[in-house]
């Protein structure tokens, strides 16, 4: 959390690209963000389990393996920016 290269790598992780000016803007906000995060880091959480959902009794069962929703192939292909035959297509990379 300390330099432009680091933020460019984070951008790559989420498949985004930023201009140098945009990265500078993000780096400029870093100090405020760190200061804000300190409000969390200073809280004593010894022996406290993380909570992933509001309730501990959230469902964790496995559903029966049955079809609930089926989307028509034609609808899927219609939503794709490009499609050929039965397939969604992207750039041909193997010639």
């Amino acid at each position: 959390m300390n330099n432009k290269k680091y933020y460019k790598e984070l951008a790559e992780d989420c498949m985004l690209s930023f201009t140098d000016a945009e990265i500078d803007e993000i780096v400029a906000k870093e100090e405020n963000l760190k200061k804000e995060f300190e409000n969390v880091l200073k809280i004593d959480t010894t022996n406290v389990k993380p909570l992933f959902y509001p309730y501990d009794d959230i469902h964790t069962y496995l559903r029966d393996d049955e079809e609930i929703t089926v989307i028509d192939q034609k609808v899927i292909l219609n939503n794709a920016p490009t499609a050929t035959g039965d397939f969604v297509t992207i750039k041909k990379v193997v010639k």
Partner: protein
Amino acid sequence: MNYKKLSIIELHEKLVNKEITVSQLTQAVLTEAKKLQSSNAINKLVEDKALLLAKELDNNIDQNTLLYGIPYFAKDNFATKDIETTSSSNILKGYVPPFNATSITKLADNKAVLVGKAALDELGMGGVGLYSCNGVITNPADEKRLVGGSSSGSAYLVAKGIVPFATGSDTGDSIRKPASFNNIVGFKPSYGAISRYGLLPYSPSLDTVGFFTRNVTDMAIVCDATFGYDNKDATSHHNDSKDIYQNINDLDKNTKFGYIKKVIDDLTETTRKAYYEFFELLKSKGYVVEEVNFNQDLLNALSAIYKMISYSESVSTNSNLDGIKFGQRAEGADYVEIITNSRTQGFGNEVKQRFIVGALNLNKENQTVYLNKAKQVRRLIVQELKEVFAKTDILIIPPTDKVPPLISEMKIKTAPEKQYLDHILTLANFNGSPSITIPFIKEHKLGIGINLSAKPKNDLLCLQAAKMFEDIIGIKNEIVEY
């Protein structure tokens, strides 16, 4: 036809008494909605579908279904079958879902008429109304001020009286803060009370489906229609709050109300005075109103925990927006470049900046230091709220302490020691409480709401208490006419 001030019940009576037809009402709504196209509050009108449905409903009058023929807007992050759903993001332009969100299906089953899709801060990210890809949405009562968000268009359209209700989603305060900014009712039910299936996710551990109305009774009606377990949403639950409309006036006289003294004391002088006077009024009616304790360090950490958790979840849940399968695709030499360019061109700045902070928290080296820590503190918050609700039935908190800010002044910071007030509504997202904002104070055309939360899964109690408050406060069914 001047229908705009009418509640759901009043419209229902006119429909079943044949004073108006569903077609006439739908046409009137569409006409009024078209006048607001420049507001950017509407992403899409579904005129043909709405009028066709209205005609069918006119041929099959249903006296027993309160939402029969009632027009509404859906926030544009609800999947609507065969209707473009963009979540106000350029990357989703052209996406037409092949299915309805469960809540949309339930509203259709109750014969409500979807008239269009309301704009939002892109993908639900932003509490201001400035981040829709289609342009800025401002407060309907004063265009120099914030409308709030992320459910900006829904709030705008209900406040203007275009429809009596609209769907919203609430991850941090996206229903309850705009409700306060617009003098309307905004309800975030318990987490999982309404299925999230078909709600485009922002942060699944916090996202909640809810509504805007102009009175609490109407809210009870839309909740009755949409609550319920859904096996398509693994986080939905069976909620015991049933027949809310029938029981809305039956609040237990022994209901206890609590408030956090420092929170009320930190409000502006006018708002603080109004709260303390209101507490005295409640006491004079025989209700118990007591101070409850809350660890201030946890309140001060709310904004950071929200960012750590929701931004991390958002970068993960939105990774499917890649320009490959649906939505807008940019050019590129290979699939990596295509995805990167599609996302870079398709998302607005606010979203991209949140994704970076999310990626920061998800980075291997930070997962324990930040994200896991935030989830541990989330448990402490939930425990603290459990203790609050062991002592009191309803927690009263201020959704905002001033009228909506001027857009030109939105970057003016509150005093550091009071900044936690801006994030206090997130409490109910962290623990899943039902939480409702209703109108409280009016300053000319603008207003300030009051918020009530109950123990998770006690939605009926929350709404009953809100109805009692509404009866005392006396502000409901107001619209912004000009």
